[in-house]
């Protein structure tokens, strides 16, 4: 894992620093917009590397400790590289009473990984989220932002097969 992280850092460094510069510029280097800047970078880069956080800190004039505090506090940020396909299983109350815990189990056992993990080949990241806000469809999962309502075992097999 460590090797993978450092490789990604070197490989992505020019692209990443370009992204930081552009994003910070878009918000006029306003330190109040730190969270918004990190959100955009998370979307663009897929994760926030130590190099990115350091760049943000420098360009905004915000202590790196505060940048880390925020990046580690909020769920939207990832400090490690994530999979190519993000599976989010909704654990909101409505989904909960309609069997979300069982659904997580099924997915976890099908992919042989635990919630919060990224598969070794970086194909999938499996996450549980607190509420996707489409409670009427529960239990619901979102794979790369596409929502699936009440997926059966068969549905799941074909969804995962389609995500290479």
């Amino acid at each position, binding site marked *: 894992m460590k090797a993978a992280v450092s490789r990604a850092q070197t490989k992505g460094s020019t692209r990443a620093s370009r992204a930081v510069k552009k994003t910070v510029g878009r918000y006029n280097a*306003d*330190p*109040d*917009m*730190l*969270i*918004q800047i*990190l*959100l955009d970078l998370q979307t663009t880069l897929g994760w926030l590397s130590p190099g990115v956080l350091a760049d943000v800190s420098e360009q905004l004039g*915000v202590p790196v400790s*505060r940048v880390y*505090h*925020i990046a580690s*506090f*909020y*769920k*939207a*940020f990832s400090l490690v590289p994530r999979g190519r396909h993000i599976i989010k299983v909704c*654990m*909101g*109350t*409505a989904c*909960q*009473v*309609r*069997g979300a815990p*069982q*659904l997580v*189990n*099924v997915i976890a*056992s*099908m992919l042989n990984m635990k919630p919060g993990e990224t598969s070794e080949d970086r194909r999938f990241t499996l996450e549980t*989220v*607190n*509420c*996707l*806000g*489409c*409670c*009427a*469809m*529960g239990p*619901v999962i979102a794979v790369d932002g*596409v*929502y*699936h*309502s009440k997926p*059966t*075992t*068969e549905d*799941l097999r074909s969804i995962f097969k389609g995500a290479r």
Partner: protein
Amino acid sequence: MTDMNDNRLSSAKQLETLRKTILSKRDAEKPIITVCTGTACQAYGSLEIYRRFVEELERQGVEGSVLETKSTGCHGFCEQGPVVVIFPREICYVRVQLDDVPEIVSTTVAGGDVIERLVYRDPNTQEAIPKESDIPFYKRQMRLVFGNNRYIDPREIDDYIALGGYAALSKALLRMTPGEVLEEIKESNLRGRGGGGFPAGLKWETTRDASTGSKYVIVNCDEGDPGAYMDRAIMEGNPHAVLEGLVIGAYAIGSHDGFVYVRQEYPIAYENTMNAIDQARDYGLLGSDILGSGFDFEVVVHRGAGAFVSGESTALMSAIEGKVGEPRMKYIRTAVSGVKGMPTCLNNVETWANVPLIIERGAGWFKSIGTEGSKGTKIFSLVGKVNNTGLVEVPMGMTLRQLIYDIGGGIPQGKKFKAVQTGGPSGGVLPEQYLDTPIDFDELTGLGSMMGSGGMVVMDEDTCMVDTARYFVSFCCDESCGQCIPCREGLRTLRDILTDICEGKGKGGDIEAIEDIAEVMEDASLCALGGTAANPVLTTLKYFRDEYEAHIKENRCPAEACKALTSYYVDPAKCSACMICLRACPTEAIHGEKGIVHWIDQEKCIKCTTCYEVCPTRFSAVRRLSGEPLPPPPAPGTKVTREKKR
């Protein structure tokens, strides 16, 4: 009116002229096809349906007979999505598929006939109900705030203006003083829809009177309560109503800067808000000298980054300052010292969306709806084990029973109602004996729950109340910011105890320990989220103590839901060896073949309930057992004994 390069409206008259111009271009007789593209319908493919309508109208050469094809925000009846409504006749088609589109265009749009097959059918009477407002789900609602969603393309400000949008703003800014606006809201007794139910007018007044410097107003759309999505639907479907309310509030308070704080999980709400702000600014409804009144107001949108606790007002304000969204002690209210130490008035999306209605129709009208202490309507997210899940807006004072049975259509599959959970992680569960309670802020609080933001999760006999308490406590445990000990450690200990009970490791004294911890959390937590986090535990304990005791004393989960206490078993006498469960099992734990009775390998079984759910009801061979010994599996190769029915 205005010249080509300047769309700014600088008087009430110009706004009214614009409205008339928009309306004059619309032939009221011509059909409008509206396709719900709220998040749920979108997930069912409604965007493709919308595009197909546009193509199909052209293909059949009838695009001229239609005024418009509109993609709208959420209509509320998410269970039946994708929903298509054809105005002015209000013909409502449910669960529309792509292939239905050509027929709808030729038969209904061009031919004027209703397609029976696509119409909502009352599950009890089988009666087909073509008109949207006749459907029982809608019939008993009072959709004052939410109802306009179905007429509006949220990306088109003209749609909002056509319905009289921004007329309340014009009235407030040009015909009322800030003091009069404030008095109207105070008089209406509008209470905060975000959870606490604090009178909005009083909050506004405190902010106005706090000091003379800058002041801020905030829309809280960080809807974090699991099981609730009303604010999402308003922000996505009718963002101008919220902005209009916000500007009116800012005027009353004397604020010139506002924020909209939107949950990052709601990308469409964010996009539509950004777009609405641009459009409103273009018309001079935001920015400087709004409608020629001399009043200036600007809005900035912030996205949350995924933290439940950031919806708490002090935490949200620190997130707006680019800091970690953690709450602080409220010795001084945010109305006095909020964003950057300045007086700040924060209200929830639904609260702001009520403001234009009150200004336009008056406090007297608003007060005529609802109960003594709770006026107006409330939008609920009616979800869980209920037939008609979706968003419903009802007058305050409607009973839980009316909401769940008359609008919600009762519990699916003939199961028995057990409880309804209101108020999210700060609320509680209410059992059957309170179904006739009128819904209002004070009634629900009196029973140990709360109104909260409007999540209403229905639970049936299959829901375990201890597990429900464990669920909410784990939720809060994950989301606690960890600053104060009562919340951080209290929740952790509660989670451990409740998990033990759910796993059959409960012991005497556990219930008393829970009660002690809950008391300390309530008294000593730093913020309201910690102070109320034990409510789901306390209410389940109050109303379902016997379930706790069954877990602890008999190792039995009465709902047969707790995994550690429940086993799945195929009854050899009932199994027809149909292979359905065997194929559906995700872990291949079920053995057997055609003609050979199936059995479950308990080692491999992950207790996902799939087999129990897919076993055809005419066999009902899969059983759940809790608190009783598991019978041995049948001898290998046991043939089906069940007599085949024809």
